[in-house]
């Protein structure tokens, strides 16, 4: 370990999810950069995951409803009845109209207790840990420049996509996505005034990120700035879109339609057909200035940046399909698939 490495106790605490934002962010940065600490933290995390699984495998009755009626007494006298009579009695009881559950009368619990923290897949965890306090992510010398306008949108899309694909439900994840959408919304300015100055492909990326599919009740729906983005993209489209931007616009359009955003029909009419074909995986995409990152030198297998992690998670999505990620943290970050 390095001289400035945190103590083993701190690493264990970090692995267990202890600590607050600034401390966790600083730990995340150190762990990403230090192989020894990362190994130690990973070992702790694996063991903790096994311990949680052990707890789940135990037959400890869940701490669910404190109002549940103790069963043994009922079962004792029911067991004394002949089986047919018992079955008839059970059928009769089940057929009676049910009274409202008594929880509201004497109980205080209307929902099961929150589950223990979900063990997130490593790449989602990486995105969570590298999220800035303002809700955004910073690119590191890549297309995002210093303002994170692209890294944030890509990371948000990646979280949406990965959480659905992997069936991960987590309040931590939902909260991170809300904060990220809030960050993008603030970047867009009042009524989306600032988005008009963005290039079309960035507008499309933001629009995709700000539209969460409505089937996710906690994060569904479009952010208010999404309306301004649709208008801005329609203006771009009227003047002719760059071929590289078309698949992104098509992708954004699909997400905007999925969240019932009004005004999308006009934009769809303005899109060239070949762009739509490309968006379904038939064509390749070249971002106008895809990143030549500055992360060379990181050991393989180490998450080198939130942008890279987001791209890894999104690699099968239409706008990125046809492109392959380069070797981990080596230049170029993206390469066209063979």
């Amino acid at each position, binding site marked *: *370990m390095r001289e400035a490495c945190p103590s*083993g*106790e701190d*690493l*264990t*605490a970090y692995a*267990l999810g*202890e600590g607050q934002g600034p401390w966790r962010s600083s730990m995340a940065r150190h762990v990403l950069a230090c192989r*020894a*600490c990362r*190994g*130690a933290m990973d*070992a*702790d995390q694996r*063991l*903790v995951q*096994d*311990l*949680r*699984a*052990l*707890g*789940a*495998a*135990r*037959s*400890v*009755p869940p*701490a669910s409803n*404190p*109002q*549940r009626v*103790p069963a*043994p007494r009922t079962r004792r006298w029911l067991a004394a009845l002949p089986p047919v009579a018992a079955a008839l009695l059970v059928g009769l009881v089940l057929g009676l109209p049910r009274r409202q559950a008594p929880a*509201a*009368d*004497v*109980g*205080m*619990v*209307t*929902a*099961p*207790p*929150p589950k*223990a*923290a979900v063990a997130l897949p490593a790449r989602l965890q990486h995105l969570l840990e590298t999220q800035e306090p303002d809700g955004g992510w910073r690119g590191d010398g890549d297309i995002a420049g210093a303002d994170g306008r692209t890294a944030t949108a890509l990371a948000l899309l990646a979280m949406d996509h990965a959480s659905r694909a992997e069936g991960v439900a987590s309040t931590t994840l939902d909260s991170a996505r809300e904060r990220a959408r809030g960050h993008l919304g603030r970047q867009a300015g009042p009524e989306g005034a600032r988005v008009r100055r963005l290039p079309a492909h960035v507008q499309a990326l933001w629009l995709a990120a700000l539209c969460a599919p409505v089937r996710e009740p906690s994060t569904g729906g479009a952010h208010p700035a999404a309306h301004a983005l649709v208008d801005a993209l329609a203006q771009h489209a009227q003047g002719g879109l760059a071929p590289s931007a078309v698949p992104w616009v098509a992708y954004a359009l699909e997400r905007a339609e999925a969240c019932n955003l009004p005004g999308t029909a006009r934009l769809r009419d303005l899109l060239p057909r070949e762009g739509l074909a490309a968006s379904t995986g038939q064509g390749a995409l070249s971002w106008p200035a895809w990143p030549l990152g500055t992360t060379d030198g990181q050991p393989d297998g180490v998450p080198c940046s939130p942008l890279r992690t987001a791209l890894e998670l999104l690699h099968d999505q239409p706008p990125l399909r046809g492109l392959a990620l380069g070797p981990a943290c080596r230049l170029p970050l993206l390469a066209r698939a063979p």
Partner: protein
Amino acid sequence: MASTETPLPARPPDDEPSDHALLAAMARDDSEAFERLVQRWRPRVVNFLASRGADPDGAQDCAQETFIRIHGYRHAYRPDAPFTAFLFTVARNALADWQRSRGRRTRHEAGPAGLEGATSRGPSPDALDHLDLAMALEGLPARLRQVVELGAVRGLPYQVVATLLGIPEGTVKSRMHTALRELRQRLGGGPPHA
């Protein structure tokens, strides 16, 4: 119903927050509120459990389990009935679960706690998966095992573990680290960090 068996509530002094206020603070993840609630109610809960047949150790265990469950309910709690009805219902349930668990152990002479789900047909695949870990956990000294059970297996925050065990949070932190290192050694892996 339950009211005849529920101890009378201890009215907090006027300058002390009410139980409902403490629960509301707990819902905001104020761990100090949890500590105050435990301090206020633990002795009565232990006495209540002992009066219902729990032995001294069992009463302590069930009281701990009661407060773990109360902590788990902090976001779902609705203050429209006396807190005591809620608290002692949870305590009764914890005691019933403990008694059932103890009966099962006696009947089946179950092995490590992780295999409580084992039946006469043999342990479930899940239980077998965790056999080594369960045995290693059972072999830890009690002071370390308690911390792992609460902090890692149950997923409680350090501060809550500290409150439940009546030890400083820093001690929880160091014991957890030591415990995980010992567990790894018992499982055949060396300590990756000191």
